[in-house]
């Protein structure tokens, strides 16, 4: 039986509504993702995709339900433990504003190890190797302002796998790119996740991105899935 990387059951996350009452931001009946698989999570704006990623990364807690990621019952962990878990086992890529503007491409990778509390002597070599793998060996000393959007996303992908995560979560990673850059980044994500042995979940509303993945799931369908 395949190992399960993500298991959600009866998850609900609500926010207070401006006029009183509550708004349901996320509702998932039951959802499981096998370890090592690559899944596109499809949904329109406001469908709860980003909330779901926050819950999976341990950045937000559900109001109810079970969230098990890489064998960890996340809601049961205190915040500090969830921070440690995220730094060590989860890589995140966002749509934009992914990089520290004050740091070079190489330093942005080193920051991943620093903030995960896993800085070591091997970090420099690992960062150089990753930049080479994403085709940016010659841009290591460039700051984000000197890189194109596509290059910035490639640095973000390299940084997301810097700490060898078992789960790679991406929130609209190609949302600000043109078609050719989009395909390049999707290919890169899939290749790097495969090479690192990480489970890949990409949130998108772009049909072209969905088409590039072997499996996809609609966030709307998760709400109705039996718990």
């Amino acid at each position, binding site marked *: 039986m395949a190992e399960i990387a993500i298991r959600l059951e009866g998850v609900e996350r609500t926010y207070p509504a401006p006029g009183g009452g509550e708004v349901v931001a996320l509702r998932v009946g039951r959802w499981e993702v096998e370890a090592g698989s690559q899944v596109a999570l499809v949904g329109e704006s406001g469908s709860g995709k980003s909330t779901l990623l926050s819950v999976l990364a341990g950045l937000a807690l559900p109001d109810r339900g079970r969230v098990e990621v890489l064998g960890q019952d996340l809601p049961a962990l205190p915040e500090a433990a969830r921070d440690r878990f995220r730094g060590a086992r989860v890589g995140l890529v966002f749509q934009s504003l992914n990089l520290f503007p004050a740091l070079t491409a190489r330093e942005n990778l080193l920051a991943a190890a620093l903030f*995960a509390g896993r800085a070591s002597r091997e970090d420099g070599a690992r960062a150089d190797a990753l930049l080479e793998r994403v085709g940016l060996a010659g841009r290591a000393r460039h700051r984000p302002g000197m890189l194109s959007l596509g290059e910035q996303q490639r640095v973000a992908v390299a940084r997301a796998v810097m*700490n060898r995560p078992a789960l790679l979560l991406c929130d609209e990673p190609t949302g600000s790119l043109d078609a050719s850059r989009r395909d390049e980044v999707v290919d890169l994500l899939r290749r790097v996740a495969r090479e690192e042995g990480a489970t890949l979940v990409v949130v998108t509303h772009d049909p072209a991105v969905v088409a590039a993945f072997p499996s996809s799931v609609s966030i709307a369908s998760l709400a109705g899935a039996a718990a």
Partner: protein
Amino acid sequence: MNHEGFVLRSLRHRRAATLLSALGIGLGVALVTAVDALRRESRAHFEGAALAADLVVGPKGDPLRIVLGAVFHVGEDQGTIPESRWRSLAADPRVARAVPFAFGDTYAGFRVVGTTEAAFGMEARHGTPVRLAEGTPFGPFDPEKPGYEAVLGATAAAATGLGVGDHFHAEHGLDARADLDEHEEAEWRVVGILERTGTALDRSVLVPLEAFWSMEGHDPSAGKAAGAEGEAPRQVSAVAVRVASPAFLVPLFQEIRASEDALAARPLVEVRNLFDLVGNADRLLFAVSILVVVVAAVGVLVSMVNTMNERRRDAALMRALGARRRVVAGLVVGEAAATGAAGALAGLVLGHALVAVGAARVAEWSGIPMRPALLGPADILVFAGAVALCALAGLAPAIGAYRTEVAEGLSGGR
């Protein structure tokens, strides 16, 4: 890269704001340093000069004025005491040295001080003996064959341009603003110039007491032997006394105070009383300079709040990478503290450089020699205070960063 490296890179990225914030702190700290040095040195200067004598004996009146006049050459003439008072003190076995001073004349604004050879054996200030830089002390005065010899203080010599062998005529009176009459009957010859002492002695023209008395208008019995029958007694303005043992100080002090013709003042006590008296103004000046640092720290806060969107974004990224909230907040406080440290360090260097460069001008203007110190306990306090103040200013943005949620932070944009 470590956390400190991250802070430094962040500061470098916002270099214009960092430099302006640090500049504000630096100027404030430089002001505090310079004001503190001036306070410390002026107090040390006055106390050092006061320690040159255990007692100053003068006419009945205000002891502070007696000390200011005799030790610092400040203020109006306070009157005189009989020559016999000086002579009895000089003969007292409890007294190691009694140096008389007679005031009344000036030359080019510098006081002409009638005194004795004993002045060359005293201390100008605590630990600084009176020494000749060139020439010789004046010799004994012979009324039958008057030779008016004078020894100039270092400032008086430099300002007047007089050297050994030069001649001058003194003027009668102490008020430099008044139109004074010249003593045409006596032409003084410069025989020596004193080493600089950083005291009122530098601005003095020392002449033999007997010669001083011999000049017109100085004494009813000018030029005659002391104590001759039917003649008014000769006078001195004050006597600086060094006791033979500290045990004699209080009895002698009380004895003179109880007398009818003289008053004894303890210079150190009077100087400290004076500093207590003017202490409020002193403290106010210091408080204003501290306030400048506080305002500069508010500048650090404003600068950080202005870049809050960018900071929230950075905080969100750090959190996404696994940083704990307190680490995120700590880095913001660290950035503010580092700005304060850079500014404070520059301010200390600038403050001491100002003191060093301005020392000569301050000494010339106020007579207070400034001794530049590289690093004192006060500097460490000022540095620590400025850093702590800036760290405090960084608390509000740090709390903002602490509370940042990743989703919010990354949707804010720049």
